[in-house]
């Protein structure tokens, strides 16, 4: 496995020296270009020796709203006279610590809620060669309404299904519950599983997408920490129902703690004969392993994720065929989000009626959402599907920090675009949010108070997509950069009205082309944040471009100069 080989080399040398890659190529009969292709694709690998302190500050959405840019300039000032062999300070894409913003990563260890003074001490310690320890406070035991086994034997749904083997019945229950994918796309889960089940042959896979990387998305981190047994049980159920014998949890490499928790739970299951051959004497087999992602937002795209497991560059595939027909190693594959898998045992253990009763206003089940940004109590909340966004933001997350006014919110990270405070009564529901021109997505609610500049937020989002584009197709690779260029120009000073008008027309053409022709969701969604800001906050954008004024006093300042072209990924 190429990533294991590369990791072993990196562990030994701190980076990937050329002679080692050459001998790896000889040993494994892998062409050099393939090795270089993946090593230069994933942010996890270093092709040159890293500095003693490799500082990467999360630059996205929630961290951006919580002073990441200021943290970066403070640290840059503090280490301005330090050599590049000792300290390098760069941006990094969302680290999945949005509730503890701003976060920064030092030599692959993640430190949340960073303050400049504390970060400085850590960096100096790293330069001195001291070993660092990522903080892992033991998670407090949280009881979740979603857990059907909070006071009883776990894996009840698996036991029942292994004994009864009523696959069609289980699928019917899922269908009746109207369970839909929780990763963003909302595809009916029972239909996906039925399609895989209908494929002939026994070489099939169940893959769990635990690579949540959309800025603001932290719910899967919570689910894996507190409900790992539901995720594993959901995958087992998928294996039983579809006939797949092998499952893989694809987890982002920044989730060290969750990787351990899931690993421990998997070992427990093997010991309890819940995984492996002849599970509980049923004659059914299912094996489960964890695959640690070498990094990158694009790996969350389902086919890019499959490419990564196959040891290739994580470039999304052209569809059709879909993973249900030709997924991992071109075999039929069930690919679902962590939360989707965790929902299945809830339905099968407690029944459809219970599941339906959990939702509000016709929506079904419970939903984990992350609330971050300017929220008074940022965190992960378990809320009824269909409840009003107002309830989530104000009742659960305590409203705006410092008693400020809500200005805008993103229902699901940059991809959902921004909705104005006036729309805060929209319900947390697939259809309701789609009707509002947004989406339920992955439940990454990011709230902005009245000090926020919305053009700045749109530029921040496009920059994220530009940094995370895999580069496979033209519209996303080139278009995302050109959109950054265009918006950055808007934040740099007044333009003649004729220029603004033609820029707007150009932006629309570009948005159209990207949405219509990009291979995957990443490229298609790039225009969403700026289009939503133009729709709901047009006056603010006009003030920037026509008068050269940022009503929030954020753009046109020295600390933001040049930020647009800072690339988080390795140069």
């Amino acid at each position, binding site marked *: 496995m190429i990533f294991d080989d590369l990791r072993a080399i990196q562990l030994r040398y701190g980076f990937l020296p050329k002679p080692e890659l050459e001998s790896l190529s000889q040993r494994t009969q892998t062409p050099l*270009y393939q090795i*270089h*292709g993946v090593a230069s694709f994933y942010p996890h690998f270093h092709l040159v020796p890293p500095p003693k302190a490799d500082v990467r500050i999360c630059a996205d959405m929630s961290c951006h709203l919580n002073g990441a840019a200021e943290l970066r300039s403070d640290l840059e000032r503090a280490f301005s006279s330090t050599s590049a062999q000792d300290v390098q300070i760069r941006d990094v894409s969302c680290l999945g610590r949005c509730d503890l913003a701003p976060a920064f990563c030092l030599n692959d260890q993640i430190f949340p809620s960073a303050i400049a003074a504390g970060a400085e001490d850590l960096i100096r310690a790293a330069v001195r060669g001291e070993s660092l320890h990522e903080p892992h406070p033991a998670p407090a035991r949280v009881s979740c309404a979603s857990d059907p086994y909070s006071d009883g034997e776990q894996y009840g749904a698996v036991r029942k299904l292994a004994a009864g083997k009523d696959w069609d019945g289980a699928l019917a229950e899922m269908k009746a519950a109207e369970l839909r994918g929780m990763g963003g796309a909302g595809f009916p889960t029972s239909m996906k599983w039925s399609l895989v089940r209908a494929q002939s042959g026994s070489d099939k896979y169940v893959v769990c997408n635990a690579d949540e990387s959309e800025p603001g998305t932290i719910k899967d981190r919570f689910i894996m920490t507190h409900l790992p047994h539901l995720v594993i049980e959901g995958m087992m159920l998928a294996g039983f129902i579809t006939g797949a014998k092998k499952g893989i949890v694809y987890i982002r490499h920044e989730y060290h703690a969750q990787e351990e928790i899931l690993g421990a739970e998997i070992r427990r299951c093997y010991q309890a004969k819940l995984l492996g051959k002849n599970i509980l004497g049923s004659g059914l087999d299912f094996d489960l392993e964890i695959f640690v992602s070498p990094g990158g937002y694009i790996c969350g795209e389902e086919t890019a994720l499959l490419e990564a497991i196959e040891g290739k560059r994580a470039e999304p595939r*052209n569809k059709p065929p879909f993973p249900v027909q030709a997924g991992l190693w071109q075999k039929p594959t069930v690919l679902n989000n962590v939360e989707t898998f965790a929902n299945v045992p809830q339905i099968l253990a407690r029944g459809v009626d219970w599941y339906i009763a959990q939702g509000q206003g016709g929506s079904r089940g419970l939903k984990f959402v992350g609330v971050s940004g300017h929220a008074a109590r940022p965190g992960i909340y378990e809320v009824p599907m269909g409840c009003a966004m107002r309830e989530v933001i104000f009742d659960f997350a305590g409203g705006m920090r410092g008693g400020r006014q809500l200005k805008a919110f993103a229902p699901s990270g940059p991809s959902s675009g921004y909705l104005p405070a006036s729309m805060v009564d929209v319900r947390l529901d697939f259809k309701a949010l789609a009707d509002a021109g947004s989406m339920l997505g992955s439940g990454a609610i990011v709230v902005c108070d009245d000090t926020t500049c919305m053009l700045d937020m749109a530029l921040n989002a496009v920059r994220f997509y530009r940094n995370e584009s895999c*580069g496979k*197709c033209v*519209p996303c690779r080139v278009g995302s950069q050109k959109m950054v260029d265009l918006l950055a120009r808007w934040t740099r000073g007044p333009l003649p009205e004729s220029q603004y008008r033609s820029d707007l027309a150009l932006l629309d053409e570009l948005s159209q*082309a990207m949405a219509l*022709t990009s291979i995957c969701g990443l490229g298609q969604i790039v225009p969403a944040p700026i289009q939503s800001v133009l729709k709901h906050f047009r006056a603010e954008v006009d003030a920037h471009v026509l008068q050269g004024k940022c009503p929030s006093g954020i753009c046109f300042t020295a600390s933001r100069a040049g930020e647009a072209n800072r690339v988080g990924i390795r140069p």
Partner: protein
Amino acid sequence: MSATPTPPGLIDITIDGQPIRVPANTSVFDAARMHGISIPTLCHLQNEIPVGVCRLCVVDTGARVLTASCVRPVEAGMKVVTNSEKVLSARKTLLELLMADHPSPCARQQHSGDCELESLARAAEIAQPRFAKRTVARGLDDSSLAIAVDHDACILCDRCIRGCDEVKNNFVLGRMGRGYAAGIAFGLNSPMGDSACISCGECMVSCPTGALTNKIVVGASIVAGPDAQGFEAEDLLRLPIFKGVSGTFLELNRGAIVKRTYKPGEIICREGDFGSTAFYILEGSAQVSISSPIAHVKTAGGAKGLFKRLTSSLAPREDDARDDEARDRTIPIDASVDLSYDNPVAELGPGDLFGEMTCMNFYPRSATVRAASHVVAYEMLRNVLDIMMKNKTFRAQVDGNYRRRALESHLRGVPMFADLAPDFIDHLKNSVELQRYAPGQIVARQGDPADSFYLVRIGFVKISENYPGGELVLAYLSRGDYFGEIGLLGGGTRTADCTALDHVELVRISGDDFRQMVDRFPSVRRGLETVAEERRAQNQQRMQTVHNVPIDQFLSQGLMEAQSLLILDLQNCTRCDACVNACADAHDGVTRLVREGLRFDQYLVATSCRQCRDPLCMVGCPVGAIRRRNSLEVIIEDWCIGCGLCANNCPYGNINLHPFEITVDDLEHPGRKKAAIKQKATSCDLCTYLKEPSCVYACPHDAAHRVDPRTFFAEMLGQGQGSQK
């Protein structure tokens, strides 16, 4: 829609309202093409598996988004629209995006006006892209001899990658990086010329833009004479040596190779001539020889003082043995054979390649080649030679010839290898590895583990050490020279940097073979140890000197390079030129001293050989005749062919060509002799046959001195004590 029911295996769809029936699994792109509907594309080629990355071939199938028609199989009842406003506008935006970063007109557009991107952009009426241009250039790669790479013109269509992998199975090329920073890379992102690329040209003929183009070789095409035949690419492709090469690529290189026929006795190339081509013999045999007399310039007759005229003559080493003269019995030349010192004539036949050094590195011809029978040969420029040399079949043949015919004499040329048993030489013939290096490529780095021993087969290798303030060149090694023994015998690490100066080919003997050889033949070990010890001592002494003299100006004038300088004290000198005349008198009227040069303090450093630390004169000698003595002074060996390259290379103008009238075989009239002027290179010999250099002896004002710069200038440099003055 067709009124008849669809037969099994076929599928009915409509494209732009036109009913179309095609076999299942046909792509929408092909279905359209088969029915005369053309869809634009940049990344799709008929002979490659479609990847759908440029997105220009998008069509509307009624779905939420458009679909790339090259990767989309037809489905029953599909209604495809290829030309709606929505589709056309999206395509135009994509072209405009690409054009914003395109260096228009790119190399392809300039050469042949057929850049596919620029043609499509013109058709879509995109004059000035409205998007911002790329701010950071991605750069050019000029390292391949045959193909120019302009990363800025690359649109990442993956056509070259598929050409290299799928079509030719060479697996050299791929994507690297990601997002806007993504690009194509050869191997581990090496320069193309240093990668495993075999110059088959497939990537270049697959490229839609000017990112990969055929390099126009300087000097364009070979002058075709009446004896030269041009021919079609198909003729060349039939030759095994061009197996795997793209036909289009050969077509583009047509002018760079000609087939020539020679009558018996006709000269194919002449020693000392400059050239840029190599020859590959197809039929017949040719004789290779050196017609310059094998001897050096000897000056004598002045024993009784200056009143008797001195004369210079040519003397072979049997008659006039000099210190540190080579004892080799073979003369390295630019072919797969070596010539004997005693009788410098050899035979070349079909399958032999000669003139590689001249072709790759533009050195003068090392020998004269004459057709011995009716000869048919290909003459080629270096881009074609490069293609041939990268072809595995041809490469194996050339390597085989070398192993069979020249390797033994090269091994025997290393003095301490003289005792190797024939069976061991045979073993080495099979086990050595032949390696190619591009100019500037590092063979071994100081401090690296030493794991092999090298013989130089073609080109020049610079051996250098780094010291504060610069690089110290220990030696330039050419054909027949060797290196790597110090590291293997010593601490197991390289003691110096070894860098290819030009296109270099090395014979690598593995550390295991080397150790086996040293264990089995004690004389080899003793010999090597002596040499290694000498080299170490010399190097150390040089380093010591360098450390002691940190004066920038002194160094920058090259004075520090010198072992021995002729200096004129300008306070005493009356510019009478007696020194110059004395030198001329001592050397047949050809002075080796010019009273001009650098000034340092009150001294003029006259132009005469400084026996430099970085002896540039040694780089390029086609026969390896100029080299150092152990004392570092320059010596010109007997087989100098008088080409004059060393004289050109000397930055101080200190090497002269001394003409002699001799009789040679008249090549036009076999059997007869004729008078000819031949030249031999000479440099200041310090008048070693006299008590003191003539110039110093002749100076009436005590202004000329021959000195060691380090001790002489020591005081001025604030070091040491006193001077030799």
